[in-house]
């Protein structure tokens, strides 16, 4: 697989799996506003995944749906941060804020990529992510100092660092104001290592598609 296809799949898998996790708040968020917010964010992230899978599919001679739904769990390239399931609200906001902060750094780099197609898509994604960042920042400001939120950030910080390629980690550490975790810890949280939670997610996400193989939806 080319380096480009690999990179596209990493980004797409992060956005798809996180989008799925965000959608788990639909109907049960602590307020109607947050129900709407997380549903919209989920829709955007899955939209980004679709656009990224379409580029990858062209390189790999397959389809976006096949990439999203037909791979085995070990083939997914998402980072462990996005797999975590059924977080309470404080942990959900901690992940949201850490993810959006890391994603901003990643997108800024992609926007200046020599690959015009990828740079253009990253710029489009970033226009939408601006609103996710506002939402995450608003909540992080509101919960800062709260014990549950702070311990969630502490717990998820190594996951957020592990999401980014090595050259961007220093910038994230400066932005969030936390020291980089040890290499041995980061190795455990390496992209492509999966928990049982991903298996459960994929089982649920692909059940309809698997019910009638080859159907056109």
């Amino acid at each position, binding site marked *: 697989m080319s380096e480009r296809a690999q990179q596209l799949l990493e980004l797409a898998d992060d956005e798809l799996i996180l989008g799925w996790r965000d959608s788990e708040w639909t109907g049960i968020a602590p307020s109607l506003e947050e129900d*709407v917010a997380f549903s*919209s964010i989920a829709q*955007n992230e*899955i939209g980004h995944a679709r656009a990224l899978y379409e580029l990858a599919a062209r390189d790999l001679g397959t389809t976006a749906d096949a990439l999203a739904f037909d791979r085995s769990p070990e083939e997914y390239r998402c980072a462990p941060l996005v797999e975590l399931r059924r977080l309470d609200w404080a942990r959900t906001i901690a992940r949201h804020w850490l993810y959006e902060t890391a994603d901003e750094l990643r997108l800024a780099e992609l926007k200046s990529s020599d690959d015009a197609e990828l740079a*253009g*898509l990253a710029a489009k994604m970033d*226009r939408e992510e601006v609103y996710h960042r*506002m939402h995450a920042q608003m909540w992080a400001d509101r919960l800062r100092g709260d014990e549950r939120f702070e311990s969630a950030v502490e717990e998820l910080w190594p996951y957020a660092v592990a999401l980014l390629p090595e050259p961007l980690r220093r910038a994230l550490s400066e932005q969030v104001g936390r020291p980089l975790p040890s290499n041995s810890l980061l190795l455990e949280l390496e992209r492509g290592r999966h928990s049982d939670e991903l298996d459960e997610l994929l089982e649920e996400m692909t059940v309809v598609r698997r019910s009638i193989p080859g159907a056109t939806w």
Partner: protein
Amino acid sequence: MVTAAQVWEALAEIPDPEIPVVSLVDLGVVRDVAVDGERVRVEFTPTFLGCPALEVMRDAMARAVRTLGGEPDVRVISDDSWSTDKITPAGREKLRAAGFAPPAPREATAPTLVQLQSGVFRCPYCGSKDTKLENIFGPTPCRSVRYCNGCRQPFEQFKTI
């Protein structure tokens, strides 16, 4: 033989699936129409990448081209070439008349929460600027929800993209 002008005219008749008061041309999502013999290539840009109306719009455009006797090739362009600034003046007026506040112009730097929380947004019903942000997100990803203290009416504000 079909001409580009005829295609543009036909596309201007296709309503946006979610806000039917405006057409796809009003929204500015049709980037280019190129006619080569019977082949008609239409380039269009999604408003938001996760827009669920994408396929509906693509199919409607393909149908319009076929009705004119052309062979459609509708391409989705996922780059930064569309912004809410592309909504035409007529489109903005139609949105306002239907109770949707049109988007603020795109600026050199990305919009901020402070801006969204400020009073620069005008109520589409009474024109008051005494409005406040209720939720960054709304019924679709492209809109926020605001409340007008002047006429005590909630309304939907287009996000600037």
